[in-house]
């Protein structure tokens, strides 16, 4: 069991470092879009947070695997192309995809992880991680509240496909987890993780787009 838990944390270490790369790109694009300082502050901090998360996850992987784990590979991630959008709209869509969708879904997932955590150190990590993901998700909602109505309308035209594709991707990723999860070790049962995904889509992401005036 510990080997499986360790493998999950090792995979998450790579995913966290990839998220750091994504935020580094999005932060640069936010500068290019002239985003307000409140958004820039959160986005640039997120790069640091995700690098730190990668190391924390690697530490947990080593603990459960009982052996050294190589650091995750630093690389520039490939950002979605969003065919049909012009260059400026693509930058807005990158913010929305990473923050309003991915990081918001991640916050819901981490809540499920927190529920499934008894080990004090893992619980503390999950709590810190959740607090960080909440701030990372806010980047997107703060950005949408700042952009003009025409940009919101243009973004809204891409959200349905983006959201459906992201939910499908998340579902595939959840299948690396054992069906019963590892209660107490921060790995929820797959059904609980899928339920958290649905709850977050229905009760946070979609109402969020409505609340900031993005028509779907």
């Amino acid at each position: 069991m510990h080997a499986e838990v360790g493998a999950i944390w090792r995979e998450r270490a790579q995913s966290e470092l990839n998220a750091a790369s994504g935020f580094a790109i999005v932060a640069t694009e936010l500068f290019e879009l002239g985003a307000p300082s409140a958004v820039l502050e959160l986005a640039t901090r997120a790069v640091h947070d995700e690098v730190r998360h990668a190391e924390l996850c690697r530490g947990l992987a080593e603990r459960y695997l009982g052996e050294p784990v190589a650091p995750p590979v630093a690389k520039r991630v490939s950002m979605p192309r969003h065919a049909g959008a012009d260059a400026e709209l693509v930058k807005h869509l990158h913010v929305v995809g990473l923050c309003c969708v991915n990081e918001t879904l991640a916050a819901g997932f981490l809540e499920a992880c927190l529920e499934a955590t008894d080990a004090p150190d893992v619980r503390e990590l999950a709590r810190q991680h959740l607090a960080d993901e909440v701030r990372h998700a806010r980047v997107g909602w703060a950005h949408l509240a700042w952009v003009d109505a025409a940009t919101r309308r243009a973004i809204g035209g891409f959200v349905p496909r983006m959201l459906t594709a992201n939910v499908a991707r998340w579902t595939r990723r959840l299948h690396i987890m054992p069906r019963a999860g590892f209660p107490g070790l921060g790995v929820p049962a797959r059904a609980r993780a899928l339920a958290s995904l649905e709850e977050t889509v229905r009760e946070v992401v979609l109402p969020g787009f409505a609340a900031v005036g993005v028509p779907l």
Partner: protein
Amino acid sequence: MHPSKLFHTIVVVGAALTGGCDGGPAGDDAGGALADAAMDAAAAIDAGEPVDAGEEEDGMVLIL
């Protein structure tokens, strides 16, 4: 944290950093239909049914 609290913590607090929002988590019919479609696809994947991964390949998703 209840999803409605998560909505407030993420969306309402986040939007308030810049322009704000009306704070109402009321979905509409389009949102409900979209959620149904997204979760139907998720259920199919969970059941092991073949699902077209074209959207990912079409550049809609950041692969982390």
